[in-house]
């Protein structure tokens, strides 16, 4: 009885310690979701730009919105209401619905129209030009459009603000109805640009929730609803979908796992207590991350928990290997050398990830090493003290003896592994499809209808391609703008030739200082302008003195300091340009978005002709090269890990031959997993590599325990029992994942399930000590 109460106190203390760890990790660990912290440091200029642009480029922060399900007037007023609210929303940098509100150009900005609009490049404000313009205004006044024009006539008789509005509206804008964008099938269209990076699902979800709440709060919505698309929305959807499916599969496999353990050990306390080492490992890993980094990437944690699956073997081994009448502590002591070899060799192998130079992988190494050590040590020193004294020796499990005997008699031809290896290498050479999956997007596909909807909205809105970006180089923002002006005619020609639909250059919003000064120099002084106006309106019916505000504006424009990019950014229209100019250590970059690119070769020729002043960034190619560089680092880390592992196992077993018996089946099984996946046409991604690593860790255990020489028939049965429980549980958990519709989960599930199968069979074939 005293022993029992002692045991309960120990369990309580353990749980208390875990709760303390959990509380610490909860408070100290910040979970990040930005994909970039899981990427290797960029090397090439293109990769550097990509890392800045992933999620932060103007294109990827754009949400495409449609308001559907209502009559035109309702949708238009909802569109206006939404944009007004989004302008005041801190989540959004800007929002457009096509409405051009000239009143947004207030007193301060109106005179600048002379410096911003290209009119003065081709016309002078002389009597001839003005008389033509004024005559047109008389005719406009007699036309049905007069009501729209009248409020502006006195101040802007040459309709310069209208010319600017046209210049600043998107190159391929949707049709305007009731002053706002509408799609061809009658939905109001809008664009909203978030502050949050496009590939940061948590931040995007916050922005999208705010957007939806804003829309839901608009008055008189009726049946109308909001449709959202764009990169940010996709990352939110993928994130939620993966989580949802992982949770569902997790729940199903947990139930299966519990049932399996109940059948295997017929003891509820053993089952519950057996979970404590893994929980200790996970919490210790989290706490260590909190101590060392203070933060962890969501992907680190997902991979980390996957890799920590190895640790579930430790308590299972203890439960299976305990012999009848033996004290739990004594049986752990007997197992410990082998378990310690497995734990230490895995931990040492993961040290290789620390040297990878990728923050996410370093976090992964710290988490996994801390987790494995904590799970191992708690299995050794804590678990035996809390296990109930009464238990069933699994050596007596019905059927186990027969299975062991059968395995002993299975023929094990020595040439079979060599033949398998040779066949495998041969198949690899002929496997269909590319070996490596470099396209990150291929791992996160969306339902076809969502992609079609995105393509449709993108087409209607004339939203830029996410793939290509034109990059302009300069020493200062003004140099970038001058460069932009310089290439404008060339790209206008490409658009006219149909190489692309449109290009949005920074100089479309703000001309260079030199151009602004040149336009300013063409503005006439007050007496000259008044004389020209008098001559121009001599035969026209305009009221005397009507155009005084116009003359005043021109005079004000003559003495304005030309607008710098920094100054223009403060204007109501400045946000667009600000997002196109990027400061770098060695100068400034201008980012021009391209839409409807059809002839990449023509673009490349134009860019080539600029002698390095302009470059074309293919975000897809840059991201693929980045992924390839990333994979190279992982592969190198894995290579180093393998060497470390072989050394540790060799030293622990003190025999090259025994180490070979353990490592050979592990290596061959890993090869066969890759062979089978490649033979099925699967291209390997980062997720496959992580999964192969986990499977190898499990395989190491199988081989180590099978290799152990034992003359005790009951002990051999216990080893088989432990391994079978581990294999079946791994097959259950990862086999279910392999059925997932999410490629990420499928990649991990299929690889581990295949790996566990191969490792088990080959360990029996190659490592299992034959009892003579």
């Amino acid at each position: 009885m005293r022993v029992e109460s002692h045991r309960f106190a120990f369990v309580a203390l353990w749980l208390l310690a875990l709760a303390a760890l959990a509380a610490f990790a909860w408070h100290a660990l910040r979970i990040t979701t930005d994909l970039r912290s899981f990427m290797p440091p960029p090397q090439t200029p293109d990769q550097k730009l990509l890392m800045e642009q992933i999620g932060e480029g103007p294109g990827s922060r754009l949400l495409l919105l449609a308001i559907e399900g209502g009559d035109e007037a309702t949708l238009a007023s909802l569109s206006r209401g939404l944009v007004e609210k989004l302008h005041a929303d801190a989540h959004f940098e800007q929002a457009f619905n096509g409405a051009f509100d000239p009143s947004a150009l207030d007193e301060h900005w109106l005179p600048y129209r002379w410096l911003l609009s290209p009119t003065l490049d081709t016309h002078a404000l002389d009597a001839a030009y003005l008389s033509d313009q004024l005559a047109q205004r008389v005719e406009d006044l007699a036309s049905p459009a007069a009501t729209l024009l009248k409020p502006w006539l006195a101040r802007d008789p040459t309709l310069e603000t209208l010319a600017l509005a046209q210049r600043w509206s998107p190159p391929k804008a949707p049709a305007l109805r009731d002053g706002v964008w509408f799609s061809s099938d009658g939905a109001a269209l809008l664009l909203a640009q978030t502050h949050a990076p496009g590939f940061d699902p948590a931040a995007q979800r916050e922005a999208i929730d705010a957007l939806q709440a804003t829309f839901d709060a608009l008055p008189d919505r009726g049946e109308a609803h909001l449709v959202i698309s764009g990169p940010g929305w996709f990352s939110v959807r993928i994130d939620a979908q993966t989580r949802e499916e992982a949770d569902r599969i997790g729940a199903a496999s947990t139930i299966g796992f519990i049932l399996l353990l109940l059948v295997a050990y017929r003891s509820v306390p053993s089952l519950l207590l057996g979970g404590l080492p893994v929980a200790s490992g996970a919490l210790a890993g989290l706490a260590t991350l909190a101590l060392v980094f203070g933060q962890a990437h969501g992907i680190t944690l997902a991979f980390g928990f996957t890799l920590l699956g190895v640790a579930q073997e430790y308590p299972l081994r203890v439960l299976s290997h305990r012999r009848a009448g033996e004290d739990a502590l004594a049986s752990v002591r007997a197992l410990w050398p082998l378990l310690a070899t497995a734990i230490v060799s895995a931990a040492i192998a993961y040290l290789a990830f620390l040297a990878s130079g990728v923050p996410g992988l370093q976090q992964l190494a710290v988490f996994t090493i801390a987790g494995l050590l904590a799970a191992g040590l708690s299995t050794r020193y804590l678990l035996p003290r809390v296990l109930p004294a009464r238990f069933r020796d699994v050596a007596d499990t019905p059927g186990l003896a027969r299975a062991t005997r059968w395995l002993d008699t299975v023929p094990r031809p020595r040439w079979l592994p060599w033949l398998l290896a040779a066949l495998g290498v041969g198949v690899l050479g002929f496997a269909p499809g590319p070996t490596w999956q470099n396209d990150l997007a291929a791992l996160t596909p969306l339902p076809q209808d969502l992609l079609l909807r995105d393509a449709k909205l993108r087409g209607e809105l004339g939203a830029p391609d996410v793939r290509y970006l034109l990059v302009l180089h300069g020493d200062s923002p003004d140099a970038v703008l001058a460069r932009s002006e310089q290439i404008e005619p060339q790209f206008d020609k490409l658009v006219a030739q149909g190489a692309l639909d449109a290009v949005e250059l920074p100089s479309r919003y703000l001309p260079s200082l030199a151009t602004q000064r040149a336009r300013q120099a063409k503005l006439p002084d007050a007496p000259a302008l008044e004389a020209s106006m008098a001559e121009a309106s001599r035969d026209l019916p305009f009221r005397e003195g009507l155009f005084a505000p116009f003359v005043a504006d021109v005079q004000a424009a003559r003495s304005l300091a030309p607008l710098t990019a920094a100054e223009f950014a403060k204007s109501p229209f400045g946000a667009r340009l600000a997002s196109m100019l990027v400061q770098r250590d060695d100068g400034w970059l201008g980012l021009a978005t391209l839409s409807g690119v059809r002839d990449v070769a023509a673009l490349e020729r134009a860019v080539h002709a600029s002698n390095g002043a302009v470059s074309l960034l293919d975000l897809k190619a840059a991201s693929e090269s980045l992924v390839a560089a990333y994979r190279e680092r992982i592969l190198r880390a894995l290579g180093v890990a393998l060497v470390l592992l072989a050394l540790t196992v060799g030293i622990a077993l003190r025999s090259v031959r025994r180490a070979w018996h353990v490592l050979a089946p592990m290596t061959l099984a890993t090869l066969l997993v890759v062979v089978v996946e490649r033979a099925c046409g699967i291209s390997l991604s980062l997720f496959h590599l992580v999964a192969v690593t986990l499977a190898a860790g499990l395989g190491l255990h199988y081989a180590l325990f099978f290799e152990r020489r034992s003359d005790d028939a009951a002990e051999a049965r216990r080893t088989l029992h432990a391994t079978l429980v581990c294999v079946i549980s791994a097959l259950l958990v990862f086999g279910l994942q392999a059925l997932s519709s999410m490629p990420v989960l499928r990649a991990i599930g299929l690889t581990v399930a295949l790996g566990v199968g191969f490792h088990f069979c080959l360990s029996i074939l190659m490592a299992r000590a034959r009892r003579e």
Partner: protein
Amino acid sequence: MLAATLLAASPTSRATPPDAAHLVVQLKRAPPARTAYTEVRFSGLLDRPLILRGEMEYLGPGKLAKRVDKPYREQTSVENGTATMQRGDKPARSLPLAQIPELESFLRGFSALLGGDAQTLTRDFTLDASGNDARWQIVLKPRDARLARRVESIRVDGAASEPLCFRTHEADGDDSALLVGPLAATTLPPRVSTMQVDALCRGVKP
């Protein structure tokens, strides 16, 4: 109903305002119907009115054409929800009317007037008739708030089944008159006043 019959039979029947919808139906012309016009536009921006002369055409429901001959040449046509305008030798410009819903409903009303389509007209405007069958006025006020922000009212003056004058009062105080039929050829002084135009439309000597 009884009261109406009694009223109609009473000696005061001459003062009974005519039925607006009935008057509108009488305006119906078989397309294509052409008429010359003189348009006078008064604006706060101008020190004398704009006077335009030309020809208008009603080509069927939703189809209108207007040609300006003097003082400049311009051809405007409205068809299938698109307004196309050509001035002088310049290339034609077209504009989907859906972009400016107030203009669309104004032109729809105008087309309905010329087509004698009382039903369409009463959907977009409130109608109020006065005068008598020989000399009458209908005042149309837009129901649509967007159009009402631009156009306060449209007044049609007519005699028997013939319209004479379309007056548009804009919300900003500007005013225009379209003189058609027998009034189209009226010679006007260059600085004609709103009062003079008003008298002309009502058929009273100023």
